[in-house]
């Protein structure tokens, strides 16, 4: 999709396409298509590598995606507060500019690595790989990757995560899955965020959002929650703990598991 906005060359993969890089072909640098093709292959390779790292250490990696302003950072703040006494959490933050989100996360006492993508509208596996070098996976249970707010490009790039969690906030409207099918088809869990606004924005029908998701042949669970008043947070926390327990079991690290 990233031919759309020319964002396929990112700080994380630029080394591949610069002269001498693995994907460089001509000196003139005009090779948008070859980068996209090569990038997906190289991206998938690095994503698999990232996933091996996470698996080896029994760390659950969750890729959070949504429109800008759907409440990803607020959800993370509330999630950290609910879990920080029992689990070691870290966050990789993707934004075009600023350390604002990482600063918000750090204020809750967990490490946050901010990736500023410049003009790139998504994170890729290379950027996440670089960020992982700044984290001690040995000491962690969950890494949240807060992707750049965007319902288009992030859907095409595997980061090495175990689960894609997509937030759909109540003010956005309940037909977002029908409008952005590539993104919502990739969802392992959908969170209808800002549910405290449901009484005032009564044209948002959670069942319509579920129906649109099912029409994409996606059987993912859909939870309504509000990070503001904590309604529905329990189901989300329970889901996270179940995913983590399953991963730890698979990684042969049951003894270290929390649940």
């Amino acid at each position: 999709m990233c031919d759309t906005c020319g964002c396929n060359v990112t700080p994380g993969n630029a080394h591949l396409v610069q002269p001498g890089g693995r994907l460089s072909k001509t000196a003139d640098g005009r090779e948008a298509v070859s980068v996209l093709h090569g990038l997906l292959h190289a991206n998938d390779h690095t994503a698999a590598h990232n996933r091996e790292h996470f698996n080896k250490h029994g760390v659950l990696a969750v890729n959070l995606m949504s429109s800008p302003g759907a409440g990803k950072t607020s959800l993370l703040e509330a999630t950290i507060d609910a879990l920080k006494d029992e689990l070691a959490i870290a966050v990789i933050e993707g934004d075009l500019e600023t350390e604002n989100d990482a600063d918000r996360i750090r204020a809750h006492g967990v490490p946050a690595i901010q990736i500023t993508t410049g003009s790139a509208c998504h994170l890729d596996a290379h950027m996440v790989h670089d960020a992982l070098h700044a984290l001690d996976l040995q000491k962690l249970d969950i890494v949240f990757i807060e992707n750049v707010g965007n319902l288009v490009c992030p859907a095409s790039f595997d980061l090495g995560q175990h689960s894609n969690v997509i937030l759909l906030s109540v003010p956005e409207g309940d037909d977002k899955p029908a409008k952005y099918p590539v993104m919502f088809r990739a969802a392992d869990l959908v969170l209808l965020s800002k549910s405290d606004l449901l009484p005032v924005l009564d044209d948002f029908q959670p069942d319509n959002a579920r129906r649109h998701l099912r029409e994409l042949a996606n059987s993912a669970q859909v939870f309504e929650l509000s990070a503001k008043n904590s309604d529905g947070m329990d189901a989300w926390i329970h889901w996270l703990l179940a995913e983590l327990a399953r991963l730890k079991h698979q990684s042969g690290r049951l003894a270290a598991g929390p649940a």
Partner: protein
Amino acid sequence: MEQVENLAREEQAAQVMAIHLGIGPLSGVEPQLLEQAFSIARAGSIAADAELIIKSMPIQVSCKQCGQQSEALPNRLLCGHCGDWRTSLVSGDELQLQHVELVRQAAEPETAPLAAASTIN
């Protein structure tokens, strides 16, 4: 382009005449935008004069309930026979290099389509 150039080298091609891609609506790639980008990407390569031919792949789903296959729309992947939503995608998310037409170096210029297909993603 990397795959096309590798293929051209392996086949000792003098020139690539056409590149055939198969792209599904659920791949996240827009064929029209890819065509625009291709006109830049081919410059200076062995495929500088090549034509990009994109075949739009149909969305096909297989129903887990009634077992039949049917065509579907990108945001409505329901079974066309029984209407159930529990389907799996058979095709529609491809980003495939299907085949390449090239002119070989030794013989007189002749277009020789290669049969081998390969998948990009």
